[in-house]
C-alpha cells in the first residue's frame, strides 16, 4: 500500500497547493485518496466504528485547518499520518482505563479453539490487538495494516528506525503470546 501512496506524492502536493488557493474540491480529492487508509488506521487503533468515524472526521478537519503548515519538502501522506497517529494516541490515552478492563475480561485460554466460530475469532483477534499497549499497537497497525516501511514509521512516530524495529519485534512477541494464550494460535 505504501508504494501505491508514493505514486501520488506529486499530485498530493499539487492538490494541497490548489486547496490553499481556495479550491475546496482539491481537498475532496485528497479525501478520496486517504479517507479509507486513515479510517482503517484509526479503526484498528480504537476498534469501534463510531469512534473511528468521529476521529477520521476530526483528523481531516485538523489537516484542513493546518494545511498551510504543511512543508512541501516532506510527503503529504506522512504529514497526514502523523496527525492521524497523534489524534488516535490522544484519544486512546483518554480511554486507556477502559481498555485495561477489557483486557481483564478476555478469556485466558480456557476456551478451546473449536469453540470459536470465524466471526468470534476475528473479534478476539481484534481484542488481542486492542489489548496491546498503545506504543506496541501503533507499530503493529502501521506495519501490518498500513504496510508502511520502517523508515516511514520512524518519520511518522518520530522515533529512530532502530527503535521501530525493536518495538515491532516486542509487539509481535507480546501479540503472539496473547494469541497463544487465548487459543487463537496453535
Amino acid at each position, binding site marked *: 500500500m505504501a508504494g501505491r501512496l508514493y505514486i501520488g506524492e506529486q499530485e498530493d502536493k499539487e492538490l494541497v497547493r490548489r486547496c490553499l488557493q481556495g479550491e475546496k474540491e482539491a481537498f475532496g480529492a485528497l479525501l*478520496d485518496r486517504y479517507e479509507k487508509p486513515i479510517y*482503517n488506521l484509526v479503526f484498528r487503533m480504537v476498534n469501534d466504528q463510531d469512534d473511528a468515524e468521529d476521529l477520521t472526521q*476530526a483528523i481531516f478537519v485538523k489537516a484542513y485547518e493546518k494545511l498551510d503548515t504543511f512543508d512541501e519538502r516532506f510527503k503529504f501522506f506522512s504529514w497526514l499520518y502523523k496527525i492521524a497517529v497523534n489524534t488516535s494516541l490522544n484519544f486512546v490515552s483518554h480511554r486507556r482505563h477502559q481498555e485495561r478492563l477489557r483486557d481483564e475480561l478476555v478469556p485466558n485460554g480456557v476456551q478451546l479453539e473449536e469453540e470459536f466460530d470465524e466471526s468470534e475469532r476475528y473479534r478476539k483477534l481484534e481484542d488481542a490487538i486492542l489489548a496491546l499497549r498503545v506504543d506496541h499497537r501503533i507499530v503493529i497497525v502501521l506495519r501490518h495494516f498500513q504496510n508502511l516501511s520502517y523508515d516511514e514509521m520512524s518519520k511518522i512516530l518520530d522515533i529512530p528506525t532502530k527503535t521501530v524495529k525493536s518495538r515491532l519485534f516486542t509487539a*509481535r512477541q507480546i*501479540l*503472539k503470546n496473547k494469541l497463544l494464550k487465548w487459543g487463537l494460535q496453535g
Partner: protein
Amino acid sequence: MTQQKLVELINKEIDGTNSRAESAKLKSHLSRHPGARQAYEELQKTALILQRLGEVDPPPHLRQHILNSLEKTQKGVTREWDVLGKVLEALRGRLVPRYALVFASGLFVGILLFVIFALPRDLGVGDTSGLTGTMALVPELSVFQPADSVAFRLPEASGMIKTYYGGELVIAEVRIESVTPVKTEIGFHPEAMTFSGFKRLQGVEGSLDIGQNAVALTQSGSGRGFVTFLSRGGSQGPLEIRVSSGGRTLYQSVLRTRGSSSVE
C-alpha cells in the same frame, strides 16, 4: 549472530524484505538454534493470522460528513480567500504602471473624502452597555453569585458547566476537553432571557451558533469560555445543556440560573 541482528533479520524475514543472502544467513542460524526457530515460526504464524483481518470500508456517509465539517469550520475564511483571490486575479497582469498610478490616486482621494465626510465627529467611547459579543464582555466572576454546576467525564469528552447570576446577567461558564469535535448546546427560554455575548478565554478555535432559544458551541481540544444571557424583566429560566459528538448525545442536564447554590 548478535541478538540485535537476529531480531532485525526475523523482522525483515516476516516482512519479506530480507535479501537472499540475509535469508540464507537467518535460515542457517535457525537450523542450529531450535529455540530461535520455534520463536520465528510462531511470529510468522502471528503475522499470517493478522492478515485475516482485511481492510474495513468507511461508512458511505463519512466523506460527506467530513466535507460538511469543513464548510462549518472554514466558511468565513474561505469566502474571504475567494473574494481576495478573484480581485487579485482580476488585477494580475493588467496593472501597467500608468494605470496603477491612476488607481492609487483614485483610492487615496476616495479614502480622504470618506474620512472628511463619512466618519462621525465624536470618536470618543460612548455608552457601551448595549454592546454584545466577545469585545464587550469580560465578566468578573467575583461579583456574580454561583447558581448551579454540573461536571461530566466520558470517553469522548469531559467538562464542567457552571452558572452564575448578578443583576440582569446570567453567565454560563463552559469548560470542555475533548479529542473529537464536541458540540455543547445551551438551551434557554427566549421569553425569560436573551443571548448577550460570548467570551473565549482559553482553547482551540471553534464556532458558536446562536439561535432563538439556544446557543451551540462546537470545539475540539480543551477550551473555556463564558456565555452570557440577559434576563427579561428580572425573570430567568433554567439552562438546558446538551453535549453531543457527531449527532450523538453524550450528556444532558438542566442548570438553575438563580437561587440557592449547589456549586461546590
